[in-house]
């Protein structure tokens, strides 16, 4: 039963990986790709790690540390990247959409 559950979690994780990464190749905006990628990478990887945990319960300290690091850092990285790219997009909008001769602050 545990083996079946671990295969199931690993399979779900792989589906998440392919689903989120497929948006990366499209022509969407950076923020859209960032959202789908961070969701799929974080949740997919956590599902795979949980599958590994079911398979090797003896190594639970290391795998739980990996799960916590993944949940924390991937979320934070997604936020930082979103903040940096959104600021870049706004600056770009101000400079390019200004009417010639009219100066924005």
């Amino acid at each position, binding site marked *: 039963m545990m083996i079946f559950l671990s295969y199931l979690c690993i399979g779900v994780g*792989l589906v998440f990986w392919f689903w989120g990464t497929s948006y990366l*190749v499209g022509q969407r905006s950076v923020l859209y*790709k960032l959202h789908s990628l961070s969701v799929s990478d974080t949740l997919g990887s956590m599902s795979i790690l949980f599958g590994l945990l079911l398979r090797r319960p003896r*190594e639970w300290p290391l795998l739980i540390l990996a799960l916590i690091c*993944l949940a924390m*850092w991937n979320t934070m990285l997604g936020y930082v990247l979103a903040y940096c790219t959104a600021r870049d997009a706004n600056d770009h909008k101000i400079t390019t959409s200004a009417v010639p001769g009219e100066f924005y602050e």
Partner: protein
Amino acid sequence: MSLMEFALIAMILALLIPLYEAWSDSDVWQTLLSFASVSTKASVMILFVSVLRDDWMIGIVGVIILSVGNAGLMLLAQILKRLGDS
């Protein structure tokens, strides 16, 4: 070849997509996004291999990459933003 090895090959294929995107795209943010994804996927694959081989020295490397790798990317994003501002 067991089911776990099939899963590992599927992971390697999933890893190639962001690598292709990083190679083909010129926007710095999309490239950073792709490499962040490569980093996460590679570290999960390292943990996967360490479970397969039951060798936990490799597992520690995967956990260290997960906990420190993204911090480096965050600093890089801040630097790129400052460069864009100035």
